[in-house]
């Protein structure tokens, strides 16, 4: 990655603004990175050359943009596909009531650019999947403030796929883009530093994201006990059956929420189950995660500090994971998450999918990919290669192909001509790249 030539700094507006940062960067200290060379050049690099990508302009994103802009960064891009909602205003402090319905990325960028002279935030009202390697390659550091694990894994996969290796197998350091990632939930949060290919990546630590709580269908249908069971019943069974609005549930449509609330209440009354509230109904439908301004501020700040350290080398970066919670006093714990030898995303070892035998049905194979803790895929599409020709096993994302290949789900692997050692190509939204698995049968049928 070439860093652009330092631009002329003469037109810097209000230069004394940066006197605080200057003190830190223009003097060395005993806790600096061993190779740190204190000089005005460091701040110059931060301000004129260093390009940062912020992913997400929500609770963490708004804070990150402010923090980075006040740490001297002036070339910042921000991606967010969301628009502003009333329930954002209790923490996403760059947004006002008049902004509801507008692009988060655009409103946030405008606000920062107008508040902080010289700072240029470029908004992208997009999904991260809308961009390719060429786009991502222009950044020195990527910071994520996302609430979606899938999006985190995707960008993680993207940064990994951009690495290139020398002939002797050594990583070409100039292809490495550090990723700083923050996450929050209520009064808990975490911040981490990922050096793709070198330290633990998002997929290395998938076990930190336990799969979402689900209730067994038989409980929901036959023995409901909790208000949540009643709401899930309406959501999963009654809605598809009655199809009251001729469409899928939209958690943001109050008519939908009202309908589900009323039906859930009816069902709860029928079983004498106490505790249905409108808030609970909304929470279950939209899988709402509680959020407050303070936790977002804290985690975003921890991430911004790491970006600053990484960009300037003025301190050693966090190595590499910090957990935070302030439910009971203020508690933090810092440790080094370990790179997983056979990580789906970052290891170079061939991926082996071990299964019982070829009596397994294709649907069951897909279930393994979705439910296994170290895969946690969402909606994988599978192809294989027979005699040099690509053969589609199942592709769920394209309607016509889905219809054509749905039959295969019921077939066994042996029906589909898959053998011990056969390769399966798996595409899923959790990774921008297609993953190749070799099948390994524990026994033969």
């Amino acid at each position: 990655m070439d860093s652009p030539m330092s631009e002329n700094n003469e037109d810097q507006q209000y230069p004394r603004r940066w006197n605080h940062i200057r003190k830190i960067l223009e003097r060395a200290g005993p806790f600096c990175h061993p190779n740190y060379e204190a000089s005005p050049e460091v701040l110059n690099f931060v301000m004129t050359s260093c390009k940062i990508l912020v992913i997400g302009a929500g609770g963490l994103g708004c804070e990150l943009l402010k923090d980075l802009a006040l740490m001297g960064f002036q070339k910042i891009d921000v991606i967010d596909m969301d628009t502003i909602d009333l329930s954002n205003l209790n923490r996403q402090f760059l947004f006002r009531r008049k902004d509801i319905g507008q692009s988060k990325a655009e409103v946030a960028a405008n606000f920062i650019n107008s508040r902080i002279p010289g700072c240029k935030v470029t908004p992208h009202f997009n999904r991260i999947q809308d961009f390719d390697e060429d786009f991502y390659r222009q950044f020195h550091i990527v910071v994520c403030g996302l609430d979606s694990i899938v999006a985190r894994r995707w960008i993680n996969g993207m940064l990994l796929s951009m690495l290139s290796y020398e002939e002797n197998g050594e990583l070409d350091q100039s292809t490495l883009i550090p990723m700083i990632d923050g996450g929050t939930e209520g009064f808990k949060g975490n911040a981490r530093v990922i050096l793709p290919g070198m330290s633990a990546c998002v997929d290395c630590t998938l076990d930190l994201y336990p799969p979402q709580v689900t209730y067994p269908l038989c409980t929901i249908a036959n023995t409901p006990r909790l208000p949540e069971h009643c709401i899930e019943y309406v959501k999963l069974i009654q809605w598809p059956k009655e199809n009251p609005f001729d469409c899928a549930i939209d958690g943001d449509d109050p008519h939908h929420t009202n309908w589900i609330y009323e039906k859930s209440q009816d069902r709860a009354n029928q079983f004498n189950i106490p505790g249905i509230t409108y808030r609970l109904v909304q929470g279950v439908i939209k899988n709402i995660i509680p959020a407050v301004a303070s936790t977002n501020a804290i985690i975003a700040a921890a991430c911004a500090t790491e970006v600053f350290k990484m960009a300037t080398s003025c301190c050693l970066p966090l190595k590499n994971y910090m957990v935070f919670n302030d439910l009971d006093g203020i508690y933090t714990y810092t440790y080094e998450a370990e790179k997983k030898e056979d990580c789906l995303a970052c290891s170079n070892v061939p991926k082996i999918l071990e299964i019982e035998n070829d009596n397994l049905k294709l649907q069951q194979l897909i279930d393994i990919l979705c439910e296994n803790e170290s895969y946690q895929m969402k909606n994988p599409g599978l192809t294989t290669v027979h005699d040099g020709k690509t053969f589609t096993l199942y592709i769920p994302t394209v309607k016509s192909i889905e219809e054509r290949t749905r039959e295969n789900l019921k077939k066994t692997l042996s029906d589909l001509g898959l053998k011990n050692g056969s390769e399966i190509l798996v595409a899923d939204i959790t990774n921008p790249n297609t993953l190749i698995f070799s099948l390994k049968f524990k026994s033969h049928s």
Partner: protein
Amino acid sequence: MASPAPKSPEQSDKSKKYDRQLRLWGDHGQTALENCQVCLINATGLGTEILKSLVLPGIGGFTIVDGEKVTEEDLGINFFLDIDSIGKQRALVATQLLLELNTDVKGDYVDESIEQLLKNNPNFFSNFSVVIATSLNERALLPLSELLWDLGIPLIVAKSIGFIGYLRIQFQEHVVIESHPDSQNPDLRLDKPFPSLSQYVDSFDMDKMELKDHAHIPYVVPLLKALNEWRQYHNLALPSNFKEKEELRQLIRRGIKVNEDGLPEAEENFEEAIKAVNFAVTPTIVPNDIKKILEDDCCINLTSKSKPFWILTKAVRDFVENEGEGCLPVRGTLPDMTADTNRYIALQQIYLQESLRCADIVHRRTQQLLHQLGQNTELITEGDTKLFCKHSSNLAVFRGTKIADEYDPKLVNVSMISQGVEDPDSLMVYYVMLRGLDRFISDYNHQPGEFGDEHDIVKLKACISKLLNEWGCGSLSKDDYVHEIFRYGGAELHSISAFLGGCAAHEAIKLITGQYKPLHNTFIYDAITSNTETFIF
């Protein structure tokens, strides 16, 4: 299509806006927040970051005390000042820009330094719920600490310098009813089943039930039946060691239905009963920290000025000693378990009704106490008592210390400081550095390293040595920390202030809502290593 007439409760604009936080501290927590007044001393970068995370969730109002004018330097660390504000009153501009965040919040300012305000109008502070101070020097800190201590108003002091952050909370006493523990054991009373619970459990003749029903009995039933049987043979004692618990598990296992081949059926409820032996078969006792609260002077010796918390505590204490037969009121919640709807709901109702019965007794005692004390009996509602009883096993009481006492070598916890300083992993060294820094600023009127004068290193070292000497501590083993503080030259880094600002704001919210346990009482953040530590001064 036509939309059905909404029978749903109309959601207010406020509850939509605050939805994500109401899920944490509830409508009553929000009300407490909306009724509070916060005072911020000095609208520094750190100061406005703290207020930001209080204005957004909707405190009632704030007042900024700051006599400074906005400088160009301020713009680099403070998001709530803009280029047009250079030279203007910092308190005014920060107030205006912070108010833009939330139209529900009222804001005001005083363009006066804290030193002057303390001199001219010490009564100024008496109506605040909490006072938060940043960039406070020793000269102002000590009288403010004394003043607020006497007024019984909590004070939060925050500092941000270079990569180091510091928070200190001062209050005389803080009580928490809803501490929201991350996890807790259910309150099932298996060792002391109350009559309606025993009646319910006895009503089951499990052997006569069909498999489908049998597999849907709430686990409390087979567990309590087996426990009662086990206790018959053990002088009514409870299983206390592994061997005895294993016997009990064996008894439960014996109740599992067998199929035609003599193999046990898969009955999840029985599996749950077996698992519950470990956490549910324990003596129902008053936890030690709650015992301490019930024995607190404030509880035993109520006065006409006693706060509702202590009156409720006394009522619960009397309940424990009388109707409760040594136990706290029943919590009244039942965890989810494998069961059919009717049996689960019936059992849930049994626990709920028992908890209401307990709360009713406690409430009557509360009313009597209020009456005896000459306090208004409406001061504590039935709802208050119910809430208190439900959480009575998780109450918390914190007693604070005065910040000013840390400046008295006879009163400060010297042994904690010297132990910390000797431990290379402890962040105590930064407490010492910050105290040395205070001393330096008092003596020289500028920040060490502010103008790059290397003599400051020697002077700062001398300040710190003097402090350590006053405390009777040995000197520091290395000068690295002094050099690091010198390097900062008083610089404030925005991201460090933002981290600390979030922490301080949340602690203020805990103090205001009376929910969640607050920081007690000193917190150091070292962003160089991303470590934090809490000390009790």
